């Protein structure tokens, strides 16, 4: 066991997978000697050589496009996109290419590819450095989408992602990067993609969230009246959604709040809400409440904490749902 931040846990997973499988290569802007702008790849160029931890030109579409080629030719590329907003230029290569090769070649060409992306707000970053585009990729067939919130989950899930035979987008909630440490097994381990985690068991209401919002939900939970028994679920995988875990919980509690940073309209909250309605209609005692980002551009940082769901807004959502 080691007491690690999220950044360190990810770094350790990368190092172990590179050690284990020499098909694994990292690439991206500044991932080399500098170790990435968040230092997630720190020390890896020095340890494994710059050809396996390759600085690339400033071209996100290029980074993903050449990663697809690497994957086709038998490598296991792990590109980094420097910030969520800069997935934009890579959208086409991800959604129209990486995601489609297995299907369009009936399995003849496959793309084992793990795209690492720091995601979300709350760190006072400039514009386009605080977005949460997970629903975009969940809507796009052919991709798996993962977003761990803890160092331990991150290490296990990243290991699974790198070993996965299909493309995975691995979102790293940057607000959590150095926010706290956790005991993380030093040996290799995997956590299955597609399994949510019940962070707290409870009977009255289910709260479903992922990424940095897990911590806002925990804070909200602490501020609730003592008699509220809350079940908190950390989704961990965005796509495929672990509907069984969600449904089992809501069948028990009858009430649910979904919390996320992304704009609420067509966000993942809508999908979860719809699934709960479809699966648990007769158990539902209140409509599923969505506490999400507003349908606005993520504001510059002076107002970002007013945009992001915080403990207060989440608490209010929970109480309203309970009161319904």
């Amino acid at each position: 066991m080691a007491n690690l931040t999220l950044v360190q846990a990810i770094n350790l997973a990368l190092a172990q997978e590179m050690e284990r499988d020499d098909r694994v290569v990292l690439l991206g802007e500044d991932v080399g000697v500098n170790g990435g702008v968040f230092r997630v790849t720190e020390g890896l160029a020095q340890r494994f050589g710059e050809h396996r931890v390759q600085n690339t030109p400033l071209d996100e579409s290029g980074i993903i496009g050449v990663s697809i080629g690497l994957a086709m030719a038998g490598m296991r590329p792990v590109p980094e996109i420097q910030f969520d907003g800069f997935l934009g230029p890579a959208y086409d290569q991800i959604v129209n290419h990486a995601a489609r090769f297995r299907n369009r070649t009936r399995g003849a060409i496959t793309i084992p590819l793990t795209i690492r992306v720091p995601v979300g707000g709350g760190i006072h970053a400039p514009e386009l450095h605080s977005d949460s585009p997970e629903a975009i990729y969940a809507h796009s067939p052919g991709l798996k989408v993962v977003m761990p919130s803890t160092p331990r989950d991150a290490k296990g899930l990243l290991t699974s992602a790198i070993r996965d035979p299909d493309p995975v987008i691995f979102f790293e909630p940057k607000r959590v990067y150095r926010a706290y440490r956790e005991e993380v097994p030093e040996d290799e381990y995997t956590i299955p993609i597609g399994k949510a985690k019940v962070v707290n068991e409870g009977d009255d209401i289910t709260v479903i969230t992922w990424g940095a919002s897990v911590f806002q939900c925990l804070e909200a939970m602490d501020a609730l009246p003592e008699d509220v028994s809350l079940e908190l679920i950390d989704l961990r995988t965005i796509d495929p959604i672990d509907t069984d875990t969600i449904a089992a919980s809501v069948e028990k509690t009858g009430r649910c709040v979904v919390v996320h940073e992304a704009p609420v309209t067509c966000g993942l909250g809508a999908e979860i809400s719809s699934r709960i309605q479809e699966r648990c209609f007769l158990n539902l005692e209140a409509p599923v409440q969505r506490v999400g980002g507003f349908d606005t551009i993520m504001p510059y940082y002076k107002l970002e904490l007013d945009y992001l769901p915080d403990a207060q807004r989440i608490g209010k959502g929970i109480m309203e749902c309970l009161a319904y």
Partner: protein
Amino acid sequence: MPKTTVYTASIENLQILDEDGVLDESLAMEDGRPILTDEQVMYLYEQMWIGRHLDEVAFKLQRSGRMGTYPQNKGQEANAAAAGLAMKKGSDYIVPAYRENIAMHMHGLPYHYILLHWMGDERGNQIPEGALLTPLSVPIGTHMLHATGIAWAFKLRKEPDRCAITFFGDGATSEGDFHGAMNFASTLSVPVIFYCQNNQWAISVPREQQMNSPTVAQKALSYEIPAIQVDGNDVFAVYKAVRDARRHCVRNGGPYFIEGVTYRLGDHTTADDARRYRSDEEVSVWAGKDPLIRTRKYLVNREAWNDERQFELENRAKKIVHEIVAAAEGIEAPRVSDIFSHMFAELDNDLRRQRDTMRTSSIGQDPSQIGLRSQPQNA
């Protein structure tokens, strides 16, 4: 150094076999032999002929409703054929657009796969084991990055004598990913040949509206990638350029750029009517540069070809193409469940449920759901 020249460059054009089938001996001979033997030229001619005949039949299939949109390769065959020959089958990787049927076939793709693709069947892309190809690329300009990545894998794994080649049109050079593919290839210094089939048009957009540069080849100067412009209707020039480019890539580890100057003699696809935007005169000028006619003249001059051979070839081509069509049309219909079968190595619960129920909502299908008034009436 107040005012100094810090960079100079130039682009050469290469033609070896002219429009009348006359060979430039000085360029064609190496070590006393022509760079292509008569046998090789005959092979290329036959491949081009068969490809052209397939094009004609494919056109009719579309017109009679037996196939969807199809892009003819007509007029451009020398590029794919001679380049295909210059690349090493089974070790090099071919990353095509959709006017390289002949190269794909030469590198191991059964021809009926190509028809299957245009018949709306993914099995046309199911590259057979051992054939080093990506499928036809319908989106324009995005696949060259994949070729760069493939070449990079060769370099990373230190696999000598391997090279990738990617084909694309003049229109494709406008996409951002063209720029990225070239820049990554040159900064990473990987063995990939960029082959632009400059056929003067991107659907109805003429080259002058696509780019302001007099040559496509000069686009390589941005990236310090060596480049040449060749007569793309000349099998000798194409062959020599690709062979030399391949040698360069393999020896020096870096990329190479080739512009093949050619012309699409047909419509853009069967959905297009080129008379709306280009003149008959232009087409007839280019018809005079047809690679098939030119190659045949050369062979006839060499007495390596005659009417008898031609007759035999035409019959053979008919038979081959007939079989290709039969193979494409004879395949069993895909099953509806095939929509799902290759989404992931392993299907998740949601996809399995969708496949098994053909529904996208769980109402009326989940046994745990109680309270259904009755069974659906028209189920």
